[in-house]
């Protein structure tokens, strides 16, 4: 990520956080979407602020120590590390498939409304279809 982007994200996060806090204090009797909007702004603001500042700090540390930067790059590109990360992600995906279906079954047995089950099914199918699509795409590439 570029330095300017990190600065922009940090500033945007700070602004969102400030706006969220202001809305919490200023709006006495919130109605409709305004009930959740301030907290959404605070959450998003905190996330963006932390992410942006983290990136800036990381950049600062790396700039001070080129040896550390080189080591970090090596660790990031190291083929065993990449393999471990991919294996862990694949295992995570496998377990997510079972967790998703178990949760879906639980919702169905609890008699939850269609407005919960249908988006859930769509999300589940999207993830599974995307996995198949990726497989076909990668197979064509290699």
């Amino acid at each position, binding site marked *: 990520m570029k330095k300017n982007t990190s600065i922009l994200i940090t500033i945007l996060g700070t602004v969102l956080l400030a706006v969220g806090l202001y809305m919490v204090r200023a709006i006495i009797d919130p109605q409709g979407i305004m009930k959740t909007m301030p907290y959404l702004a605070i959450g998003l603001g905190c996330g963006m602020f932390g992410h942006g500042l983290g990136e800036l700090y990381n950049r600062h540390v790396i700039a001070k120590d080129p040896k550390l930067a080189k080591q970090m790059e*090596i660790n990031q*590109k*190291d083929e065993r*590390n990449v393999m471990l990360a991919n294996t862990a992600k694949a295992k995570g995906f496998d377990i997510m498939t079972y967790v998703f279906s178990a949760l879906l079954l639980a919702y169905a047995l609890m008699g939850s409304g269609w407005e919960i089950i249908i988006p859930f099914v769509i999300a589940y199918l999207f993830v599974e279809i995307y996995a198949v699509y990726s497989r076909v795409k990668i197979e064509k590439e290699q």
Partner: protein
Amino acid sequence: MKNRLEEIRKQHGIKQEELASALEVSRQTIGSLENGRYNPSILLAFKIAHYFNLRIEDIFIYEEELR
């Protein structure tokens, strides 16, 4: 896959860290290779062989009978 990496590295008097740095991999990768826990990619195997001026077969031992 078995290999003679540790033996060859020690013959050359090189530390794991130095080899890792020269090959641009982590020290843990060298450790795992030496223990036989990790099989390298063909690219890394070539890099290792080049580094020691050896052939891949001189370092890595393919044991067909075990398969």
